[in-house]
C-alpha cells in the first residue's frame, strides 16, 4: 500500500498572527483559572466534610461505646 503524504506535511504553515499568545491574555487566564478550581475544590471538600460529620453525629456517636 502506498501512502500518499498529506498535502500540508511538507509545507510549514506559518502561524497566523492572531494565534500568537498574548502575554496579557495569559496573565488574565492565569488569574481567573484558580478561582474556578478553588470553587470546585471547596464544593467537593465541603460536601465530603458535611457527609463525614453527619455520619459521625447521627450514626457513629449514637451507636454507643466500644473498645
Amino acid at each position: 500500500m502506498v501512502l500518499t503524504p498529506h498535502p500540508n506535511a511538507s509545507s510549514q504553515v506559518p502561524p497566523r498572527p492572531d494565534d500568537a499568545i498574548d502575554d496579557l491574555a495569559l496573565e488574565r487566564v492565569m488569574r481567573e483559572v484558580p478561582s474556578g478550581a478553588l470553587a470546585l475544590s471547596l464544593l467537593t471538600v465541603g460536601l465530603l466534610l458535611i457527609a463525614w460529620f453527619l455520619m459521625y453525629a447521627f450514626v457513629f456517636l449514637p451507636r454507643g461505646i466500644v473498645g
Partner: protein
Amino acid sequence: MRADTEQDILKTELWWTALVTAVVTAIMLAIIYAGLVHHINPPSNIETVDPKTLHLTGEFTEGNLGTRVEAGDQVTSRVVATQFAFQPQCIVVPANRTVTLRLATPDVIHGILVTGTNVNTMIIPGYVSQVHTVFTKTGDLLMPCHEFCGLGHSQMWATVRVVPEDEFKPGSDGRATCDAR
C-alpha cells in the same frame, strides 16, 4: 509569568494548605472527642492463644462458649469463629449492661461486626479478640463474618440476641443461651 501572578498562586496554595490542615485537625479532634467522652475506641486487646489447642483446653472449649455472667456481674460472651460458622450460632446478651465479647479462631483470619452497633473487630489465629460494648436496643442483631475466609464465607453469620435486662435470666451456673429463652 509575572511575579505578582506567581505570588497570587502561591498565596492560593498556602490558603488551601491551611484549609486542609484545619479540616484534618477538626476530624482528628472529633475522633479524640469520641474516644475520651463517648468511650468509642478501636479494640486494642493483645492476648495470645494457641490455635492448635483452642478447642481442647482453656476458655474456648465447647462447654465454655456462649454467654456467662462472671464475677462482679460481668457478662462475657465467648465465640469461636471457624470456617464457616460461629460457635455458638446465637448468643444472648442483656441490654444496657457492659458486655465483653471474646472471640478466637483455630483456622484463618475472620472478622465480625454487629449490625447497628460500633462492634467491629478482626479475629486472627493465635490471638484473642476482645470488645467491650453496651447494647442499647433489644432484638436480634446480625453478626456476619466480614473478612473473606473461604468459599463458605457468605454462609458464616451468627445472631446476637439483645434482651431487656429484666428478661436476661442466666442459669445457676451463670450461663445464658438463646435456647433457654
